[in-house]
């Protein structure tokens, strides 16, 4: 065979190989471009970062129960780049009808750039009241310029889980609802024991994520900003008090030292939970999936009972509080099938929490269940775990807003000016406190100055 022919064949082969590699051989209906499928169904394309196995039941159930709509689920690998990938696809008008975001600052960024569709008209068309269905806390957070741009599908409310065996060995009584942060500290110190590598700590809270808990619960929505959003709010004494609280707990030997986190990758929630189930520490502040999902994993097999109690309060008699975060769905502004997309979102967020939310061991957001059967499936999945009292868990996590006030999580804000950068600056300062390179006062002072500079630049 002469060289010319061989080179042409080889080059053609490489080109074909490249094209084939870029092709999509997934089992999709004849169009995945947000139009109508070959059998006449309206197609809804849903992008999310949840792996396919966890969404299979949802996709199958929806398609079986909807003759006129075909749902196509497309995952984006869960990584720090997931949001930028999704935003790039949104900008490029990639066929997409429903998507999600990690936090409210992402939501606001997309709304500012006209990437998302307002939902109020669809709620009205379907005879639904947003605040009635999802609660006033969610309604407030998802309202931007007077309109709702996302629907929450899974709540994260926080409670304290504790290892009853460690408490029994230390001779410490179990905490009771209405306990205070001072009692939390005392208990953490009393149940800590041992020395060196085998020391059992009272808590193993991730400092970068929990140092602001008490400030956030005290100050409420938009805690990190002044009321008009023109500057940061880190000069409020609540922040220094909150930081000092966790720092003192570490200095007292009751909180695992932050300089020991890296070697065991304890910055990852899953790894901290694994350490809890190995008996490495006594208490943690967690949402439901840490208990019912991760607590059931074979790698986390444990022989002790887990107690659940509501979060502490500042002083005895104060109303109960918990931090409240959620995951949500949004409709893409360029969607070709908006009514069908809303139909899917309504089904996902309200009508079938048993196949959509319970599979993730998170709490449904709707204030009611469509049927008793669905409610029981959710309870059995989300709040049942060996060694845990379902009643205790239900009470700690599902008491209505009138019993336990839901305070939006620190990063769930309605003001989002330079939020990512302020949080980055916050992580930097806090890290230095828990590595004993700065005092809490110095860190808060620097944080306030730098955060204000970032907010001023962003404005």
């Amino acid at each position: 065979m002469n060289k010319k022919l061989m080179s042409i064949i080889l080059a053609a082969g490489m080109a074909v190989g490249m094209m084939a590699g870029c092709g999509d051989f997934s089992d999709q209906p004849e169009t995945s471009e947000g139009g109508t499928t070959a059998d006449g169904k309206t197609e809804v394309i849903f992008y999310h970062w949840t792996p396919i196995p966890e969404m299979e039941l949802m996709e199958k159930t929806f398609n079986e129960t909807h003759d006129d709509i075909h749902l196509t689920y497309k995952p984006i690998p869960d990584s720090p780049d997931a949001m930028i990938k999704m935003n790039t696809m949104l900008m490029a008008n990639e066929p997409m009808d429903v998507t999600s975001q990690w936090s409210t600052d992402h939501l606001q960024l997309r709304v500012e750039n006209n990437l998302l569709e307002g939902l109020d008209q669809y709620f009205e068309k379907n005879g639904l009241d947003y605040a009635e269905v999802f609660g006033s806390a969610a309604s407030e957070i998802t309202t931007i310029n007077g309109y709702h741009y996302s629907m929450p599908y899974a709540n994260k409310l926080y409670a304290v889980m504790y290892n009853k065996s460690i408490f029994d060995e230390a001779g410490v009584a179990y905490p009771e609802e209405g306990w205070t942060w001072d009692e939390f500290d005392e208990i953490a110190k009393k149940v800590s024991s041992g020395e060196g590598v085998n020391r059992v700590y009272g808590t193993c809270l991730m400092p970068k994520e929990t140092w602001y808990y008490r400030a956030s619960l005290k100050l409420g929505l938009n805690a990190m900003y002044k009321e008009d959003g023109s500057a940061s709010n880190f000069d409020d004494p609540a922040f220094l008090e909150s930081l000092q609280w966790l720092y003192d707990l570490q200095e007292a030997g009751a909180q695992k030292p932050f300089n020991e986190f890296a070697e065991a990758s304890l910055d990852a929630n899953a790894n901290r939970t694994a350490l809890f189930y190995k008996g490495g520490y006594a208490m943690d502040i967690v949402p439901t999936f840490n208990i019912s999902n991760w607590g059931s994993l074979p790698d986390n097999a444990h022989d002790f009972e887990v107690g659940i109690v509501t979060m502490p309060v500042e002083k005895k008699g104060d109303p109960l509080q918990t931090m409240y975060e959620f995951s949500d769905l949004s409709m893409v502004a360029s969607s070709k099938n908006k009514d069908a997309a809303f139909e899917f979102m309504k089904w996902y967020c309200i009508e079938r929490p048993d196949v959509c939310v319970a599979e993730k061991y998170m709490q449904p957001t709707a204030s009611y269940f469509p049927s008793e059967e669905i409610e029981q499936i959710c309870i059995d999945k989300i709040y049942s775990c060996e060694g845990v009292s379902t009643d205790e868990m239900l009470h700690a996590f599902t008491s209505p807003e009138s019993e336990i006030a839901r305070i939006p999580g620190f990063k769930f804000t309605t003001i989002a000016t330079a939020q990512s950068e302020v949080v980055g600056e916050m992580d930097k300062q806090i890290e230095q406190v828990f590595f004993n390179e700065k005092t809490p006062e110095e860190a808060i002072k620097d944080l306030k100055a730098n955060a204000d500079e970032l907010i001023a630049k962003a404005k």
Partner: protein
Amino acid sequence: MATATKLDRHAITNLNRLVAKRSIRRSTLIGWCFLLPSFIGFVIFRFLPIICSFLLGFTEWNLVSGFSGIRFAGIDNFIELFHNDTFLTSLLNTLQYAVIVVPFTVALALIFAVIINDKIHCRSLVRLMIYMPYISSMVAVAMVWTSLYSPNYGPINSVLKSIGIENVPGWITSSNSALPALMIIGVWQAVGYYMVLFIAGLQCIPASLYEAAEIDGANAIQCFFKITIPMVSPTTFFVLINCIIGSFNVFTLVKTMTTGGPGDSTMVTVYYVYEQAVEYNKIGYACSASIILFLFVFIITFIQLKFSDRWVHEG
């Protein structure tokens, strides 16, 4: 008859030239056919993005706003960069990293290469052990070294304490020692690759030079400085350039082990670019930072090339 012969020769020469030209054209075409897929890939995925990056460095652009959100910003980004403490710190850290890592890497790689080039026991095994870090996954490397660097229970500090050093460093948990900690890993990982290059360079040195030097009474150290180093200088030049470029591009270690902290003690320029682009969506600003980095590397490489004549012995 003579004229006809002359004409024949002329015709034959012309014919030969024509055949040669066609042959060259055919070879060129064949070569391009082989090169084309790779070249197209290079242009689309490397060259064009570099050009776009240069252009975007002069704009203000939040990725989420789409192409319609691109605003020309002139040199505002660059002015802001040089007033930004974190960026300036990242430049300084990157320079510090390069100034330490490059000489140590090159020196160690050359020393190991000289030792291994000699006939020592288990030469292949030793060579493999030194080369292994280079081919190991950076994430796995980061995890292992994080454990080694544990300030309270890690083996390194345990050994230091056992030999009487009380004030052991905090390594990646301390601003003072975090960057040196990364430098150690950087040298450890890169030495193997450059050692292999030096071994190849050493094997090109004629043995007769060493024999002549031995006859003249030169010792091992003199041979090393008077023969080995000058003769291996082309390889050294190549290694230096690559090592400098590699050290300016340090990113994975920082991302997996320290994320620029504690504080900004390990913030390097590439990580700063990543942070601005990926986490804060400030594409234009990130591109301008990458232009600054490119200029630094370009200037250093240009200076090296310019002065290479003075010390690179082409033999």
